[in-house]
């Protein structure tokens, strides 16, 4: 039951006369006319209708409309798993803040301010989220050009300074978009927290404990953190902006680069959103292949989490043991997709290639071996007293936090919230395989550890079932739905069939125009719910594509949970939240 039922909508309509209900096949929303009502409606939805799970807030820019910006909340009822979007137009670029109702809205609103320049009444620290202080522009507005505004000379990108007057390659310009100066970065740092403790520790942006380029500011009293803030944006590439400017099929390789540890899962979430929009049916074989690879990728990602998490807590050897298994999964993915990390294996309407010969044998071999390796990891860590001491009752995230901050994935499940898109809204072949959702109860680091370990086991089970199903399938079963007009036909057909060639030409050159409408669709990534919201106006590229990033929201709870804990706990907690910067920053 992914979207709100008629009954629920009617009940809401009954309480509030001034809303319109808009039902689309893959999107249900209520339009709120007046910004004054939005706080009340959100409160009502949260308290009375139990839509207490905050999933996302984002803004869409319509430069030609009177009010220009449209804000949109996506909420979920965690008991019936109904999903509902709430739309409201900004008035004079202003909207009352929702951070009192949903704590997760705090970061989402900061991001909206950063990208669109909209303001929130009552939100006193709307600061830049990804860009630095003093940055003049709002990049996701429609009037901001894709390439940015070149205004700074950066000769270092060319070889001109070395006396080589030839331009290094055909497309480098000395002029570059604005790059922050040290002063501006320092100002950004200062604006985030005011020192109250003994010393402020800059933890990051380049630090082995942050798993990427995250920048934490810890205000320390002794070793205890009394307040903290996160400065993001070191890997911000403007994925959403890029998506608005290229065809649907071209955005696929970019999704690999968001959560680069679970490329196939990202692709799956994206491809599935587009397929829902264009109403494309996917052949069964492709569904199984997708499921199998997504689960392999999940094991892969969890193994990296295990390795680095253990490394953070000092267990150096687990890292390499985890990488040994990871390498095998990489081999399977590489043999099929052609690349190890950013695989670009899926296609809209199916998968890129059929399975390579021997994949199933190799995968079977891997899974058989993997169970014993999983036991090894358990033996090294699970009952180890130091591991227990470091993880037990550390960084406790309550269920209320999960709902408030919109935490998803193992972080939510560790706290006892059984929210898993694979079960709630089954996609690919998840409705055809049998697996369990592991759920913890306390919500400490140890619970999240157990949940992820169990998930690896369940994923291995799913892979086994997929192998079984794929082995039974005949060789030449279609792996891509090439009949649909929006699907690029496979390469062999292009060479041999004029019709397919013309179709391929048409899609590549003009892109296939998708139907008008909206879609919010999400997949269960190893880190949580990765959602894609597509606002289509009938063109070949989305008008607005919003990526609901799981790492971003999962990370937003960090400053709250870490307070009054030590730096060592911060490492453990961050490891258990397991954010990937490529996805927090997009």
């Amino acid at each position, binding site marked *: 039951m992914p979207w709100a039922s008629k009954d629920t909508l009617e009940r809401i309509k009954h309480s509030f006369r001034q809303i319109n209900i808009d039902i689309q096949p893959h999107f249900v929303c209520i339009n709120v006319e007046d910004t004054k009502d939005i706080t009340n409606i959100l409160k009502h939805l949260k308290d009375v209708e139990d839509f207490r799970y905050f999933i996302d807030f984002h803004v869409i820019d319509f430069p030609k409309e009177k009010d220009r910006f449209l804000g949109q909340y996506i909420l979920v009822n965690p008991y019936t798993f109904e999903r509902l979007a709430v739309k409201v137009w900004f008035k004079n670029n202003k909207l009352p803040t929702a951070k009192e109702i949903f704590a997760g809205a705090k970061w989402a609103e900061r991001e909206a301010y950063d990208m669109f320049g909209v303001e929130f009444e009552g939100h006193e620290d709307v600061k830049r989220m990804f860009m630095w202080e003093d940055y003049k522009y709002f990049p996701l507005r429609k009037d901001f050009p894709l390439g940015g505004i070149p205004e700074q000379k950066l000769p270092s990108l060319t070889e001109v300074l070395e006396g080589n007057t030839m331009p290094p390659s*055909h497309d480098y310009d000395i002029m570059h978009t604005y790059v922050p100066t040290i002063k501006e970065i320092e100002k950004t740092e200062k604006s985030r927290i005011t020192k109250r403790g003994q010393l402020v520790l800059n933890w990051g942006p380049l630090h082995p404990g942050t798993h990427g380029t995250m920048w934490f500011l810890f205000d320390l009293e002794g070793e205890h953190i009394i307040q903290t803030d996160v400065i993001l944006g070191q890997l911000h590439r403007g994925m959403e902006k890029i998506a608005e400017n290229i065809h649907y099929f071209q955005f696929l390789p970019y999704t690999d680069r968001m959560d680069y540890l679970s490329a196939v899962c990202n692709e799956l979430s994206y491809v599935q959103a587009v397929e829902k929009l264009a109403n494309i049916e996917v052949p069964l074989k492709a569904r199984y292949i997708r499921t199998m690879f997504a689960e392999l990728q999940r094991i892969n990602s969890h193994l990296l989490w295990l390795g680095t998490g253990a490394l953070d807590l000092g267990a150096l050897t687990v890292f390499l043991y985890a990488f040994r298994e990871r390498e095998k999964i990489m081999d399977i993915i590489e043999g099929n997709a052609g690349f190890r990390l950013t695989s670009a294996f899926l296609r809209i309407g199916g998968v890129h290639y059929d399975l390579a010969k021997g994949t199933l044998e190799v995968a079977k071999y891997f899974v058989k071996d993997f169970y014993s390796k999983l036991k090894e990891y358990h033996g090294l860590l699970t009952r180890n007293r130091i591991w227990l001491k470091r993880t037990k009752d550390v960084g406790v995230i309550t269920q209320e936090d999960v709902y408030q901050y919109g935490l998803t994935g193992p972080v939510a499940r560790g706290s006892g919230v059984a929210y898993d898109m694979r079960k709630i809204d089954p996609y690919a072949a998840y409705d055809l395989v049998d697996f369990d959702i592991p759920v913890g109860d306390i919500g400490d680091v140890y619970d999240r550890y157990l949940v992820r370990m169990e998930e690896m086991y369940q994923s291995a089970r799913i892979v086994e079932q997929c192998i079984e199903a794929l082995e039974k399938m005949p060789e030449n079963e279609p792996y891509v739905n090439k009949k649909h007009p929006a699907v690029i036909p496979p390469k062999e057909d292009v060479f041999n069939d004029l019709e397919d060639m013309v179709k391929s030409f048409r899609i590549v050159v003009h892109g296939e125009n998708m139907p008008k409408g909206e879609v919010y669709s999400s997949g269960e990534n190893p880190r949580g719910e990765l959602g894609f919201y597509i606002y289509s106006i009938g063109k070949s590229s989305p008008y607005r594509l919003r990526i609901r990033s799981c790492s971003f929201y999962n990370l937003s709870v960090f400053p709250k949970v870490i307070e009054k804990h030590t730096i060592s706990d911060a490492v453990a907690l961050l490891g258990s939240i397991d954010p990937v910067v490529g996805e927090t920053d997009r």
Partner: protein
Amino acid sequence: MIKLKRLRRDDSLGPLESVLFLDFIKGLTITMKNLLRKPITTQYPKEKITPPKRFRGKHGHFVYDGTEPPSLQAIQGFMSFEKGKSRCVACYMCQTACPMPTLFRIEAVQMPDGTKKVVRFDMNLLNCLFCGLCVDACPVECLTMSDIHEMAVYRRSQAVIHMDDMEKIGATNAKTVRELPDRIWRNDKERETLWGKVKWNF
């Protein structure tokens, strides 16, 4: 509705376990077991693993040598091809399909006899995502990707590859790759250090 699995939390050690350090001993035996196993690494610059057939490495151009697909045979009359040279037809499909619009630079001229000749095909690999969309888009099976993955260069300008580089890759490396069977990896022996012996069903 949802199949839940409540986790069993064995989170406190028994008295015997904690006094005799059984948890440490368990971990130590596991690491000792691994100490006695064979190392799984390949020593990179000395030994190299051959990438699989589908690997997306440095780009190449297949040359005009009589192995053209039907799609090219239909239009080869309009092109001035030479044997052993690129079979590019300058349709700009790769450039159009590429998510990075500035990556390609393709130029073609009209020959006196009315045929078309490609004179320039540059790719700036610094911009490349190696997503393979260009290869998919190529309608005449000209652009391809080889298994060359060591592409570090000393200057930015060296990262731009030209048509003659790509012809060479296409004529040698990419060609051998294309003729291989579509298998998950090419060389069983190389993978044995990591995988051990895998049983094949085919």
